[in-house]
């Protein structure tokens, strides 16, 4: 179907009004880096590509207001220039689908709730979206939240908007909390742990005074037999050095700890945080209570699953060659049994047509969620079929 490119919030309102009149469904699109997530669908694309640029950025206030279509890379470069960062460590999905990095937009990563390795300690997009301006499925512009870091005025609609995948409205402007970039980051590692031992070491580290900001586990090498467990320490140099001395002592029972050089560490974090290290036609994310990760992984290894852990085990990236719905059902069942959920990230279109990308919700929650979506989009304009419902 066609693509339209609004150049203002008013254009966007008009586009929604047109769609309501023409009974056409709309898919809100940032850079399209995640377009291959979800069921195949046929909807009019509303590209946010023309709504770009920084509206306000005062580093000392820790607040950035930016238009939704601004490329993620530009936003990250801007805040890096002030020694700051997006605390939730979003990443570009393009390479997971064989596309170059660079297309992802700030609106897209927030709407998809994309968070990297630091999420376990620093929170997700939902924790850092302070406010927004958006156009609803009624064709109305509305704002929610604010442009200050501390606010409880009215319902916290930014929480609903982050991770909504464009199903309750199209954000035109976002206000995000930014944080100082750590002056120093060091990665310590233990090699040779199995999944259970890796989880135990990560739980020990994350529950300690070492103030570990991220913990991941990456099987690698031939047959993925050589595993490495990663611990990130970030902050001011005297603190990082002190903690880099303490952590090996805390983890002495778990294995010998070595310090990685920066290039090796960055490659491993990229792999652990974005799933990029896993090959396979089908790619899943499992969000689990961390202690349940080893059991879920063990249940799925007979399917030939390759996997890595992030968030101390709270996130499992899992790749399969088996493209059948039956294998997908086993992944979902293992995630459920572990008390968590599985999201289908990458698969051929025919599998995505029959296996929903998002983990099915309990019936009462699904019904409540649908009522909330209708509160913003009474006509179901944004219900393209991408996520069922």
């Amino acid at each position, binding site marked *: 179907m066609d693509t339209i490119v609004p150049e203002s919030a008013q254009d966007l309102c008009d586009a929604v009004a047109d769609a309501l009149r023409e009974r056409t469904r709309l898919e809100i699109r940032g850079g399209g880096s995640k377009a291959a997530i979800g069921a195949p669908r046929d909807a009019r694309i509303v590209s946010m590509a023309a709504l770009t640029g920084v509206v306000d950025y005062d580093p000392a206030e820790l607040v950035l207001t930016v238009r939704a279509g601004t490329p993620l890379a530009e936003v990250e470069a801007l805040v890096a220039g002030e020694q700051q960062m997006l605390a939730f460590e979003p990443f570009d999905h393009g390479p997971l689908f064989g596309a170059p990095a660079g297309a992802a937009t700030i609106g897209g990563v927030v709407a998809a709730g994309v968070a990297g390795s630091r999420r376990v300690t620093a929170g997700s997009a939902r924790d850092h979206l302070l406010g927004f301006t958006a156009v609803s499925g009624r064709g109305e512009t509305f704002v929610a939240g604010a442009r200050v870091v501390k606010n409880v005025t009215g319902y916290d609609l930014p929480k609903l908007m982050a*991770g909504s995948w464009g199903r309750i409205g199209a954000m035109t402007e976002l206000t995000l909390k930014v944080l100082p970039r750590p002056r120093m980051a060091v990665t310590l590692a233990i090699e040779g742990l199995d999944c259970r031992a890796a989880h135990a070491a990560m739980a020990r580290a994350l529950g300690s005074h070492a103030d570990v900001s991220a913990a991941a586990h990456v099987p690698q090498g031939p047959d993925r037999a050589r595993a490495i467990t990663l611990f990130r320490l970030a902050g001011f140099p005297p603190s990082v050095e002190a903690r880099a001395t303490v952590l090996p002592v805390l983890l002495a029972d778990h294995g010998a700890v070595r310090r990685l050089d920066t290039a090796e560490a960055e490659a491993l974090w990229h792999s652990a945080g974005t799933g990029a290290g896993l090959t396979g036609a089908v790619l899943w994310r499992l969000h689990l209570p961390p202690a349940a990760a080893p059991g879920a992984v063990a249940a799925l290894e007979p399917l030939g699953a390759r996997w890595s852990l992030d968030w101390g085990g709270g996130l499992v990236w899992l790749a399969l060659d088996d493209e059948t719905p039956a294998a997908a059902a086993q992944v979902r069942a293992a995630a459920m049994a572990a008390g968590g959920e599985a999201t289908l990230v990458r698969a051929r279109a025919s599998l995505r047509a029959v296996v929903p990308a998002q983990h099915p919700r309990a019936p009462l929650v699904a019904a409540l969620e649908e009522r909330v979506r209708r509160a913003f989009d009474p006509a179901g304009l944004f219900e393209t079929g991408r996520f069922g419902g």
Partner: protein
Amino acid sequence: MEMAAARPARLMRERDVSILMPDPDQAVLARRAGIAAALRAIVPGEGVIDDPDALRPYESDGLTAYRQPPMLVVLPETVEQVSAVLRWCHAEGVKVVPRGSGTSLSGGALPLADAVLLGMGKFKRVLAIDYDDRVAVVQPGVTNLAITQAVEARGFYYAPDPSSQIACSIGGNVAENSGGVHCLKYGLTTNNVLGVELVLMDGEIVRLGGRQLDPCGLDLLGVIVGSEGLLGVVTEVTVRILPKPESARAVLLGFPDPESAGACVAQVIAEGIIPAGMEMMDRTAIHAAEAFVNVGYPLDVGALLIVEVDGPAAECDYLIEEIARIAGANGAVTSRISTDEHERMAFWAGRKAAFPAVGRISPDYYCMDGTIPRRRLPEVLRRMEQLSADYGLGVANVFHAGDGNLHPLILYDANKPGELDRAEAFGNDILRLCVEVGGVLTGEHGVGIEKRDLMPVMFSEADLQQQQRVKCAFDPKLLLNPGKVFPTLHRCAELGRMHVHAGQVPFPELPRF
């Protein structure tokens, strides 16, 4: 959040709450005895209170200016009872006001004359603690501090620390999205809650979130937190617990004026430091606090900063010196770094006593709670001084300086005719000023009834209607905590109306409500 003044504002209790609230439903009031009997069938024994004297303790929350005994109080003990009470009230068209510990400073738990007050105080159990996954599962009546007490032996704590934490319940914290002095670094309640069990007004029981991060689907948990008891009743909460920082140090800094203190705060953050706490007091507050607790605050300064860092000792030692250096560069005239826990606690003693201390220099005070962009602080303080002169009422300022959350305390005497009205008008002007400079009406106390009628200062009618449509998705009959947060009550059918073109409803196959 701050604790309310211990002593009730005397004349304020004569305020006519009825003008604030929808007219009581006379048909419901006429059925009071029958309603009590029906609820006793659900919550037997002493779980239903209808004796007028016994209702008295529930007539207000931390916003003591407003008092209204409820029609009845119900104190359920199980989620099944909560569900049955709500289902019955939903079917019978009876309004319900949920209540935790009743410490809200914005009137979030203020009863209605024709509503059942649903007290959650009997939900007091810690259900599970998992140190591996660093979560605790607790019932909503557990106090904020009790969560920390349940896990501190193992070196953990629950981070949000509203100053009412000894009394306020976690269920109330969820409803209000409570903060505390450490929230710049550790976040508000919303950043520390992973899941809830929630009973909707029609009695349905749903679980939102859980022990995993970022569940699929709309973040309904995120909109429950801070919804001020309007969307559902929380019956279980899963929170993150954190390793208790190894050490903490504080520095007490005096500045000639708030401008230089503000510049210091900005530079601390610009240099990449996020302190665990950063509190500012103005001259009036400093003098009141020092006279009360006598901890050695400098009295010859125009602004005082208490900056605290926590974490590994090496980090604290390094950062506290850095902060002292930055303070010096910004004109600090006093600088004392804590050398032991005793001294650190002494620095805080004055700040923590600031509210009762102000209570000693003025017969009554009214605590405000706006947030501003920090860069606008000098202008806001200047205009507040002008307002103070215009209204003829003093004001003392304490300020969560790191995140721009102001707590002006307006000094008045309720025994003097007209002073209460002037204090409220002054307070409203301060909040309008906060919004005008790019801030908000409330940083942590909530809207409740207190700021309800100021909501249009910050939000357009379209913005407010969109929020109310979310309310309609949870409680279409508007029975749960009505009259709070929103200045105008719209019926859900009216809010749901769409412009239909040429008689055609788009996508007729979709369900609607």
